[in-house]
């Protein structure tokens, strides 16, 4: 399935929350949605999830328009909001079971579906617990289970990792990779950009309702990176090494980062080779020299200005 977002626009009075947003991705891909607070991420996601209506534009799942036919589109969409509001007097199992019923699953099929998503999201152990007594991480799992119970082909997750501890984040990431491998299209917004870099096939960077850049993660990083950053570890005095680096050609902003020295190298990779040669020539005993991998966070910081509407 191909998800095509076309010239999406959403106005709230005089405020343009989403302005001519277009991008596309397809089944099996995890696509990140990156932007500062107030950039229009949640509004766009709500439109994609049929929760809101755009002022203009459309979102199509193959040939199915979510604007024209939201009822049919809902069969294909699973939405995980940033927060799961707890129902009163409802257990985890009742909650998931309710949504299985709401999506028309009956009898054994429903029971099987509920059991399988509980197992998949590791919520089977808490199925009889009241929703309101759950931790944030557990609530996110339940929210994911709810979204998955109808077996949607397109999963939208709005800040699913917010407030989760590192373990829960890693587990969530693994679940998402599994779901993508299963052929689902996943659209995820998150502030934890470093993690998105690892799992996302592509990303959309948005600010003030407008797309700043979009595309496959690798090419996005390559396209946006102006300098190559290198990390160096040597068995010599770091102060002297930093001083020497400052004198070398092509080197910019040498700095100490923990046990290593980092610096940017302008121009092509040949320049890095030249710099390494010079370092060795000056008698520094280099034990590690590598190019650091830029991630979405670097790109995000480079191209956004932190403006909100």
């Amino acid at each position: 399935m191909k998800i095509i977002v076309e010239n999406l626009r959403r106005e709230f009075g005089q405020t343009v929350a989403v302005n001519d947003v277009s991008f596309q991705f397809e089944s099996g891909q995890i696509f990140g949605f990156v932007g500062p607070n107030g950039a229009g991420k949640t509004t766009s996601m709500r439109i994609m999830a049929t929760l809101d209506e755009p002022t203009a534009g459309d979102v199509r799942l193959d040939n199915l328009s979510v604007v024209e036919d939201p009822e049919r589109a809902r069969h294909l969409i699973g939405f995980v909001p940033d927060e799961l509001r707890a129902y009163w007097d409802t257990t985890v199992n009742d909650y998931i079971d309710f949504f299985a019923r709401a999506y028309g699953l009956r009898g054994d099929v429903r029971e099987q579906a509920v059991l399988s998503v509980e197992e998949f999201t590791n919520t089977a152990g808490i199925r009889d617990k009241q929703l309101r007594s759950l931790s944030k991480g557990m609530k996110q799992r339940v929210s994911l289970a709810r979204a998955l119970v109808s077996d949607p082909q397109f999963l939208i997750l709005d800040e699913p990792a917010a407030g989760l501890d590192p373990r829960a984040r890693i587990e969530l990431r693994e679940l998402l990779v599994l779901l993508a491998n299963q052929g689902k299209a996943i659209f995820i917004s998150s502030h934890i950009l470093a993690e998105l870099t690892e799992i996302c096939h592509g990303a959309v960077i948005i600010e003030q309702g407008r797309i700043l850049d979009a595309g496959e993660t690798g090419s996005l990083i390559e396209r946006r990176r102006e300098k190559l950053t290198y990390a160096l570890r040597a068995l010599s005095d770091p102060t002297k090494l930093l001083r020497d680096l400052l004198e070398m050609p092509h080197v910019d902003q040498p700095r100490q980062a923990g046990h290593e020295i980092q610096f940017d190298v302008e121009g092509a990779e040949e320049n890095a080779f030249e710099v390494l040669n010079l370092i060795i020539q000056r008698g520094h005993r280099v034990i590690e020299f590598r190019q650091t991998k830029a991630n979405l966070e670097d790109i995000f910081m480079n191209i956004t200005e932190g403006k909100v509407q």
Partner: protein
Amino acid sequence: MSESTSSPSSALLTRLLQFDVNPVWVKDLRQASRSWTVTGTLLLMLLVFYLISLGAVIFGEAQNRAANYLGPTIFGTIGLTSLVAAYIFIPIYIGVRTMMERISINADLQYISIMSPQKIIGGKVLSSVYLIVLFYSAAVPFLVFSYLLRGIDLPTILLAVALTFTLNVLLTMGAIVIALAPLHTVMKILAALFVGGNAIFTSIWIVGAAVAGSVITRGLSSANFWEEFIPFVATYLVDFLILAGLLYQVAVAFITPSSANRSLPLRRYVTFMSGAMIIQFLLWSWFEQEEAFVIPIVLGIGAISILGMFFCIGGRDDLSIRVKRTIPTNPFRRFIAFFFYNGTLSCLLWLLILWLATMTCLFGFNILWDNHQTGTFLDESQTLNFYVGSSLYALYAFAYALLGVWLHRTFFPKRTPKLATLFLVLLIILPFLFLMIFYFIFTQKMIDEDWVLPGMVINVGMVMANSNDDERNLHLMVHLGSALFMILVALALNFKWLKTQITQFCPYERKPETTTPLPPPPPSTGPNNELPPVLDRG
């Protein structure tokens, strides 16, 4: 048994076993069964019933051994206790839960599942009815027990319970409507206190009058049982169903997204309901030979038309693609559809037509009455007062609504359309208020009741109350002229808006496919291309 013969029956059995129970019903009942609020109230109510019954038997026996008719006492006390519990607790419980679900659109994702709004409201109503039945099943044994103590008969008990039950259902549905109304929480609470509170006390008063006032007992033993009591009960049941239907449709409209054609079912239903109301009261009027039966028609449909105009101008003007897709292509069908589809102008016109159609029906009935009944339908001097006077309210409301729309769409187009409703209210109140204040400041007198103030709807009531027939009729005609003039001015001011509203009502034509940017390269699914356990159901 061979597989071929067993398959159809087993498939039927499986379908029956997997009967699609309304999910909202199941969820709400599960929540209620787990709720200590419900269980606690029910247990407390049972304890009170037990103590009342025991106390009444012990003390009643001791005090009035000779008469020994304890039935009405027990019935009244238990009935009142269950009324208070069920009429207050159940609507509040259901209303608060429903309101909490709608506080944020993200709060309850059932509203974006594949369930239709009808199914959601149906589930809510079903679970409410079930809860009411639960409470009544606790009360009814005690109420029937009062029969054994003499002084009250079983049909009276059962009819009283049925009346109480139906009113309770309406109150609970009203609570659902208030909870789902697109209002701020504070406004919902105020509406619940004023509208809900009054409805509860009115319902208790109705049940009290029917039971304590012996209306039911007298009706059951009446000589005109078939001629009067049964038609009365049938009318009550029909009205109950009609009102319940209206509350259901309003609740459905409230949770239907504005991009859907939520006006169609509601307007269709209100049109049907108005027709049923007209037929019902005209029949009563004809057969009872009582002209006053037409008053509920005028008041009911008048209230719908005028209040409807207040609310409909606060909605959106544009038609969503979803709505446009369903506009008929046939010109005649499209013309009819215009009045029933979303849109401010279409709603205003529909309400005005509803009122004019009602007046036409009443006028036709008037002619029939004058030709076939013994007396005249209306006193000749009151004819103009009845038709023109009452219609002035609808005409003025229409004119003010159009002016409110013009003020909003011209000066504050980017602000919420609810401002138009505010302008409508201000247009009604402010001119009259200013006139009254200035007149008082300069003359130290109040406005004379005999004055005619063209353009001011508040003055219509004063004019209608004028006892001088000639003067009243003249003033009514002045008001009619001013209302029509205001409508013409408002239509002229809104010319561009009217044109847009009419021209946008055409079937949707999908644009040809546009070329989209190139997709990103296909993903690398990685070495772990494993499907998660069980989840892959495809």
